[in-house]
């Protein structure tokens, strides 16, 4: 048994860390918000040049062909610096579902372009409110006239080039591949809680689209696998964010003087941060195990991912809130850096469903085992 990253994985983390630390600074994030930028194009370009976007895309489709563990290593750095990029949409979710459910031709057409960063893709599953494990059949419909219906919120939907959209086709759940650069798609940007991760509403009206269908591939299965895969990777993004919050709070508590001593010398603060540390390490241990299961097709992968998701949600939620709390009033200002993570935490929780949903999934998995 060996429960540690390999030297290559550590090197990968170092490279990603170096790039993100340099480019995705807090001031840069503030600038992107002020400019209402869709995403950080400079960072995206840099990540593409270093091959990070294709890390987990198979070599035959233009990627590097590494495993989920390597992608998770990169995701942790993305989370650490609260990067403003469509990483989850394009590289994690869209790429995975095309890989799982696409035909050889669809994969050959799209995956290399996602890997190189030439196009940005997204996965669209939502049609309004609700946090559901088994949502009803989508209203959005694909038939011989094309794709019709409304999807919202769609992550990065107003500027992405390509979307995989859940829809109904012949009375069953299906996955439609839509070129978003074509005319006739109505795109409305929504007001996003995380200002660095935009969302849109997309309305299709007999829009040309094709089915994503590998022979014998069940769309429900492909979707389930993709969302599980994303949960395992995003757990590391959450952990990166948690760690930043913990040490941001710790550093501030050692600087700030209060009643003639360091804020961090009070047991109320020490215990608060020690508890965040505990949640962080529990989450990290579970996430490492889950990505290993994923990369090795272990029999308990589903359970391990649900466990990992729950602990990552718990860790980041606590860290983001208590980091702002420890900062006091300054934490409520735009100049301080707490708010980036306070918002991002909610985004990552909402993105794949919260604690109730994953608790349910976990208990089902344990009972089935």
């Amino acid at each position, binding site marked *: *048994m*060996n*429960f*540690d*990253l*390999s030297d290559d994985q550590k090197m990968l983390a170092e490279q990603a860390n170096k790039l993100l630390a340099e480019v995705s600074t807090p001031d840069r994030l503030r600038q992107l918000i002020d400019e209402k930028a869709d995403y950080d194009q400079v960072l995206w370009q840099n990540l593409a040049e270093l091959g990070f976007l294709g890390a987990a895309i198979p070599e035959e489709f233009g990627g590097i062909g590494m495993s989920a*563990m390597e992608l998770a290593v990169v995701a942790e750095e993305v989370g650490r610096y609260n990067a403003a990029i469509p990483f989850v949409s394009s590289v994690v979710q869209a790429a995975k579902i095309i890989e799982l459910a696409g035909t050889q031709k669809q994969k050959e057409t799209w995956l290399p372009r996602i890997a190189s960063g030439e196009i940005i893709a997204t996965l669209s599953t939502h049609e309004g409110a609700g946090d559901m494990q088994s949502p009803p059949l989508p209203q959005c419909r694909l038939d011989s006239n094309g794709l019709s219906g409304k999807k919202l919120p769609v992550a990065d939907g107003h500027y992405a080039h390509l979307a995989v959209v859940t829809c109904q086709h012949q009375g069953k759940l299906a996955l439609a591949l839509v070129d978003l650069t074509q005319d006739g798609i109505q795109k409305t940007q929504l007001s996003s809680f995380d200002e660095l991760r935009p969302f849109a509403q997309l309305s299709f009206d007999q829009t040309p689209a094709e089915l994503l269908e590998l022979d014998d591939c069940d769309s429900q299965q492909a979707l389930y696998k993709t969302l599980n895969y994303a949960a395992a990777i995003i757990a590391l993004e959450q952990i990166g964010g948690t760690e930043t919050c*913990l040490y941001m709070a*710790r550093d501030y*508590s*050692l600087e700030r003087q209060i009643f003639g*001593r*360091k804020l*961090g*010398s009070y*047991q109320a*603060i*020490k*215990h608060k*941060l*020690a*508890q965040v*540390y*505990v949640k962080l*390490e*529990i*989450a990290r*241990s*579970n996430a*490492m*195990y889950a990505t*290993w299961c994923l990369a090795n097709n*272990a029999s308990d992968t589903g359970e*391990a991912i*649900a*466990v990992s998701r*729950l*602990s990552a949600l*718990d860790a980041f939620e606590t860290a983001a809130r208590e980091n702002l709390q420890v900062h006091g009033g300054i934490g409520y200002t735009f100049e301080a850096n707490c708010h980036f993570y306070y918002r991002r935490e909610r985004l990552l929780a909402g993105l794949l469903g919260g*604690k*109730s949903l*994953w*608790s*349910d999934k*976990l*208990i089902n998995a*344990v*009972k089935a085992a």
Partner: protein
Amino acid sequence: MDFNDTPDEAAFRSEVSQWLMQNAPEFTITADTKEQEFVAKAKAWQAKKAEAGYAGIRLPKDVGGRAGSEMESILFDTEEGKYELPLGPVVGIGQSMAIPVIRKHGTEDQLKRFAEPTLKGDITWCQLFSEPAAGSDLAGLRTKAVKDGDEWVVNGQKVWSSWAHHADWGILLARTDPTVAKHKGLTFFLIDMKSPGIDIRPIRQISGESDFNETFMTDVRIPDKYRIGEVGEGWACAMTVLTSERLSSAELKESESVDYLIELAAQTPGDRGTALDNDCVRERLAYWYSLEQGQKNFHLRMLTKLSQGSGPGAEASLLKLVYAQRLQQSAGFGMEIQGLSGLATSPSDHAAEEMQKTYIWSTAMRVAGGADEVLLNQIAERVLGMPGEMRGDKNIPFNELA
């Protein structure tokens, strides 16, 4: 990262599992095993392991160990845990506390005298550290040892000494110099529990059992040759003991696991079918399940660190912290979902009885081996580098403290 056995690990595991299959069954115990029989069997099982070279796997060969790796020790414990064997403090204290401290701070002669008999189960040990007025603040202990020729004369009272009534020897921390600051005036001894002047009284615990004792010492004489380390080196010795205790993970009892609780909920009637059909129940169980898995996975990470040669630091404190708190919460909840039957049990209702026992026992777990609050301080100070507590006793001689 790889959770599978390496070829060497797999070979060792299979060797161990075969040996256990042949030897373990005759030593197994049941819930009805009486205390005397438990102790006798525990010693006999220890002797059996020693004979086969499985006692003290990590210890060097010259003291009767196997000179094996950390991982081999873990593999053995895992396989051994598959049988209901008489393990626990009666033999555990010797191996996880006495031998390490003698090895690190004692002399060659002392190691020779005690290591092998301890590994063979011929000598059992108890720990004489805590006192009524010195728990988390252990260095505030008052038991005195005064030098008299070649001997030390010990007077004082110790508490929470597990299994002291069965122990042959004790590891004792006593004050030898009250005129210096409290950590500096302590010395470490090995004490023969059959010495005149030792009075062991069982403590009636809230569980109804008496695993722990009070140990009174009145003019007990300890030959100087049983002093471990230098006079005044006692605190360092105690730290060695407590560090080796930190990572020795007790195998989780089945009834303490969240799996057990999930199964129990699935069998307990509820408003919508079973208790497990209630979403609030599911959410809480799922949370504890994720903590339990996290604790297991974190433990494996620490073991990897150990096998790479970097010892676990203060971060290992989180293992017991997470475990004990979760245990109290989940056992209390396990009682609750059963309604009144969780409180008033019929003789056949083992599950409810287990929940009650665990709920009581968890209170001891939250205090023993570092109270929750002490562990949080350790994490804050030693892992996160935050300031130590303001203290009222720093650099003040013990006998001048209020």
